[in-house]
């Protein structure tokens, strides 16, 4: 296996629960060192996809490779190289974060220093407090810490900041950024657009078990053909116009305005954002 092989390759993945098809043909490739986001509404099939990659669920059909392994085989060798932050994973209530991290570290051949991980996760002050006494945000930081202590190459983050307050979200984002700087590959799921935009190098927009669009967050927005030009006319009404040729439209608008002495208040030219693309793609037909 060459170093350039992708961290994750998924081809035509399907997963059915009885009659219900949760995943209906997903293709994604995650390169090494990349932060890849699966973005979509609840029930889109994000968690099912990630749990297949983590080895928790067996796929119905399709090809899946994670660091060169088939995760369905559940090899210990693969689990030594991945870190998992579950959407809701419990932790023993009667041991402290430091004890939990020491125990978890012993599972791995080359664990990170426990004190360093406590500091990275912002848990130094709570290191010796029983886990059952930690707040929700502190427990989530412990989730991160437990996923990092094995010094995994590939980290799965399933909705890592759901239920966080804004300060905690930014702290979590910083942790993810620092992991990227360490060269880790990260697959994260989220239903927050700003999170995908902030963290992900590339995003796949998922709905009803299919990938609707894939690419860097900025290009996903720019990929759409039209630009939006808006301004307020003399009566203060907000005018919005869509165009594929903003230069010509602006020339025309500003020319007319100069002639008539109008000001074109709040004139702006915008590309469609990821949000526009997302809302358009995931809107119920």
């Amino acid at each position, binding site marked *: 296996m060459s170093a350039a092989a992708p961290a994750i390759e998924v081809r035509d993945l399907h997963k059915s629960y009885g009659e219900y098809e949760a995943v209906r043909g997903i293709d994604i490739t995650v390169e090494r060192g990349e932060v890849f986001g699966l973005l979509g509404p609840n029930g889109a099939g994000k968690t099912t996809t990630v749990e297949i990659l983590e080895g928790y669920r067996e796929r119905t059909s399709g090809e899946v490779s994670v660091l060169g392994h088939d995760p369905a085989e559940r090899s210990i060798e693969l*689990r030594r190289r991945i870190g998992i932050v579950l959407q809701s994973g419990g932790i023993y209530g009667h041991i402290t974060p430091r004890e939990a991290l020491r125990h978890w570290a012993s*599972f791995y051949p080359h664990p990170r220093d426990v004190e360093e991980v406590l500091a990275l996760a912002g848990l130094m002050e709570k290191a010796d407090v029983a886990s059952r006494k930690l707040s929700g945000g502190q427990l989530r930081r412990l989730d991160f810490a437990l996923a990092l202590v094995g010094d995994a190459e590939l980290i799965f983050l399933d909705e890592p900041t759901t239920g966080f307050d804004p300060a905690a979200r930014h702290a979590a984002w910083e942790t993810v950024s620092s992991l990227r700087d360490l060269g880790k590959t990260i697959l994260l799921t989220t239903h927050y657009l700003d999170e995908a935009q902030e963290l992900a190098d590339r995003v796949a927009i998922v709905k009803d078990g299919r990938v609707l669009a894939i690419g860097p967050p900025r290009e996903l927005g720019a990929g759409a053909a039209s630009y939006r030009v808006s301004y307020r006319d003399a009566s203060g009404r907000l005018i919005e116009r869509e165009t594929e040729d903003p230069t010509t439209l602006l020339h025309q608008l500003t020319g007319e305005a100069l002639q008539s002495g109008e000001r074109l208040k709040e004139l702006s030219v915008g590309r469609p954002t990821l949000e526009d693309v997302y809302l358009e793609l995931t809107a119920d037909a």
Partner: protein
Amino acid sequence: MPDALTLTWRQYRLERRMFWRNPSAAFFNFLLPLLFLGFFGAILHGKQADLDRLVPGIAGMSVMATTFTALAYNIVFLRESGVLKRIRGTPLPTISYFGGVAANAVTNAGLQIAIIIVAGRVFFGIGWPVHWGELVVFVTCGVVCFAALGVAFAHVIPNFESTPAYVNAVFLPVIFVSGVFYDIKNVPTFLRTVAEALPLKPLIDGLSGAMVTGVGLSANLDALAVIGLWGAFGLYFAVRGFSWEQSRT
């Protein structure tokens, strides 16, 4: 490189530490049988025949409480709270995890049996066990059997809130019908037949032979066979039906 044996030891150490930090578990799984021994021992004071029956009965009950009851509770709690799922995502070998958990239950069973033997000698006029070998055989088989049944039974319990109801619906009838607190000769025949078919009564028979009456292993082979059958049944369903996560409903 962490090997499976080292990791089993580490898991065992963690389980021990957590056990003593959880007062309610320590009470129900550890102190309760000893309290029963104290109460009933005081009530039956001076009636040696009754005491001779009580002590092995409590020993059998202890084996069931420390393995069946404790494991059913623990497995359901860890499953419902997501701890098992998290552990499944780590490189901790499954065998090391269960090895550590089982060794913890075995330690509790062993400690209780030791305390009961000493109490029997000091307070209840019962000498040291007659057949140590037989004692070891029955305790070992009883522990394996009830531990497997506890793990298998966890699969039947749908959520943590209902665990006490499920566990006690089995535990209490079994200890009453198996003659822990009274002479089983006084109960109706059909109940006695039921008791003989369940694993606790045969375990108590074996423990009684080893600790008090001196009835040897060769005379208790049918009891051992019943425990073995239940153990095989428990092991099959413990492995087959094991669930690492909350069912998605």
